[in-house]
């Protein structure tokens, strides 16, 4: 992570990768994105929660794979040719892959398009949503990647 990326997305905006699950559009800050790969054979790791699908071999690296659908409590759907694994890289050098229905595009988010989710108990209780983005007449939810993988 170089220094330019350290600036706060919530206030300054930046690039985000958009993907969708069912009809909901989610975004991830571009600094987390390592690469996007098509779905491949996943080695099952026993005795872990069901949203952890297992591990894959990404050019010699062992990367655990999370199903975002299961993580958000949705039913699995069969994988098709649009199903992707987005490989995220974190500041501490760890890689985690997330399975999403389809990847849409990389978009530039302007600061004025960003707002914070409401701060109350029931809504967004697990704090997975970091920001709400409204642009092009569409609402997108920016995910908090650290929370997504650590808050278990």
């Amino acid at each position, binding site marked *: 992570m170089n220094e330019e990326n350290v600036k706060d997305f919530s206030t300054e905006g930046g690039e985000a990768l958009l993907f969708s699950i069912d009809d909901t559009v989610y975004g991830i800050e571009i600094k987390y994105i390592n690469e996007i790969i098509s779905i491949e054979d996943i080695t099952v790791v026993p*005795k872990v929660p069901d949203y952890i699908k297992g591990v894959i071999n990404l050019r010699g690296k062992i990367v655990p794979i999370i199903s975002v659908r299961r993580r958000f409590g949705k039913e699995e759907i069969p994988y098709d040719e649009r199903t992707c694994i987005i490989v995220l890289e974190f500041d501490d050098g760890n890689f985690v892959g997330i399975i999403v229905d389809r990847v849409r595009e990389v978009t530039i988010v302007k600061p004025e398009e960003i707002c914070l989710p409401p701060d109350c108990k029931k809504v967004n209780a697990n704090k997975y949503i970091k920001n709400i983005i409204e642009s092009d007449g569409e609402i997108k939810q920016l995910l908090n990647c650290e929370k997504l993988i650590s808050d278990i």
Partner: protein
Amino acid sequence: MAKFEAGMENMVDMYIFETTSLLEQLDQILMKTENESSFGSEDINEIFRTMHTIKGSSSMMGLENMSHLAHAVEDMFFIIREDNPEITDKKTLFDLVFTASDLLKTEIELLQEDEYTPTDFSGHMSKIEAYAKALKDGEGAAPAAVQTKTASAEAAAPAGKTIKVISNSGDSMTTVKIYFEDDCKMENLRALLVVNNIKSECAALTYEPADIEDNPDSAKAIIDNGFVIHFRPAADATQDAVIDIIGNSLNVKSYEVTDAADSGTKEVPLASLSEAKVTFVEDCKMENLRALMVVNNIRESCELLAFSPEDIENDPATAQAIIDNGFTVYFKAAEDQAIVDMIKATPNVKDAVLVRKGGEAPVADKKAPEKAAEAAAPAPKAEEKPAAAKAAEPKDAKKAAPAVSGGAKQSLISVNLNKLDQLLDIVGEIVITEAMVTSSPDLKVKGLKLDNFQKAARQLRKLNSELQETVMSIRMVPLSGAFNKMTRIVRDMKVKLNKDVDLVFEGEETEVDKSIIDNLNDPLMHMVRNSMDHGIEDTSEERIAKGKPAKGKITLSAYNSSGEVIICVTDDGQGINPEKVLDKAEKNGMLTKPRSEYTDKEIFNMIMLPGFSTNEEVTEYSGRGVGMDVVKKNIEKTGGTVSVDSKWGEGTQFTIKIPLSLSIVDGMEISVGQSIFTIPIGVIKESFKIKPNQLLKDTNGSEMVMIRGECYPLIRLYDVFDLKPSSTDINDGIIILVEVESEGKSACLLADELIGEQQVVVKPFSPMLNNFNVKENGMAGCSILGDGSITIILDIGNIISDF
């Protein structure tokens, strides 16, 4: 490391490495001497040398604060070495040095952080200086060579350095010419820095060029002609102290003392001094240092003393000059001949001839061998001195060694750990690639003749495993280093907690992978602290009442067992009270089943859960409730496990089990349903198909297998891992008998099929997965197979212990 210029990183690394190991050595010496509660002269010299080196390298790195602190300690030991005072208050002395060593260590750690600001050590330094002064005053009349430092003279240099001329009288000014490092830029400002450094030590000070502050062009003049300083030292400083500051200033490449006072021409005409020519035994090496010994020997017996070449202490090149032209000593003494005799008594001196007596015409020189023969008895004063001079020699010899004995063979090198890691990674890749080549599907074509290929492949495999072993052995480090650090902790806590404890090592020569050792230090420290703080009884009376020896005992032991290293921290203290642990766990809401169902082992292992601490009070050393779970985390990071065993009233034992090496294991691949697992070959005793009469069930329905008169539990792997097996019929599967030596447990595993033996490179699970206790669930790590698929390596010990 923002403090250092680019390009210095290598030096900083080196500096940190060297200084850290020096400080560790220092700690060891201190421990030893403290135990013996007396300083041998070797120890004093060793400490002196260590501090001297740290001082030198710190000031080279521009770390003035560290340099000064090391210097203060060095000074103190100089006094101890030279004056040999009666040390009455040893405890304070040890504390002072230990604290100094700690301060330096912390500073080095700080140094590795990005935001580094030098710590001010002056508080501790003045303590040391006060102690040194007390030492010296206790000694009474001290040689002129030793100057006590006051706190104000912080930057002062070692007073013990050779006094080049003790004819430093009255108004004469000393002249020093300084050259700065090439390309250091802004020489005029560097010069100004030097001037500022020495200002406080000088009674009078002029320099040329004089306009360094305002005129940038003076930099050019300094480059061309050097920077010349004329000074007269202040009353409380010596000329040498000032020169030393100059020498230690940043970016100073070299300096020469072209000194009016030095040669004594103004005050003491050269002619008034006696002149002796000294020659050394041929091939004695390092003539300059031998000469220094001569000077040290006679220094105190001479009223005035000068010598040529002058810079013998710092410039190894003078050795050659001495060989070529001899070493000349100018002196004024009551008995010229006594001095010459003293010179002759110095080791390695071949001959010394009085060339000329002070104020007289030269005596017939170089024709006095008979005189040498006459000079039998060495001067009485010289008797003690050579020992000190000799001891001082290695220190200087070390400094001069690169120049003098450049041809010497070195059989040890230090290597950056990153490079070793890289090497290991590459070896890992090679192992995988080899498997890819030899199991390539292209070879499966029918009718291929592969005899030559197979032969070559076998050879390749053999070489690869040799390569692997070699790389592993490079990375192996004995545990003694990690153990020795504990001595220090125990020592400090002994004093703080006022408990008398022996620390005993067993098997400290056991070797483990370097990366594991690095992760072991913290856990070991926590465990030892725990044993000291909570384990050992508060008073020896308490111990005696229990029928134990008054002195507590903590044992650190290590040994190898079937591919694992077992490390135990054992104390003979009060042990863990299971009831207390349960109470506490209940209070914290950590119990998951009724109290009565907990086994002792489960209870003891609870103390390693996050947020658990049996001690109500938070002490400096332990009891914050973070200690033991951190231990567990750190050990698991290395792929190891930790367990606690204790007997209330008798003691506690922590057992750490770590894999010998993190990386490559021989494994047997087995399949269970769709999954492929790897079992380390080391634990497999045999594998077989079962006969119906071998299987039996107990009253609960748990299965057992009889083999040759012994009965083992049967573990169905698909049950353990909640997998769908291809068949649940025990006759379809294969039984693998495994034995975990360290736990003395055996069991039979049921798998679907044996696939084959393969070497696998262990890759740890991602930290995210570690959150789910994969390790406790029997998975040690994963590995990539030749075809790119992933296999999970089983931790048989954990699987069995759950049964």
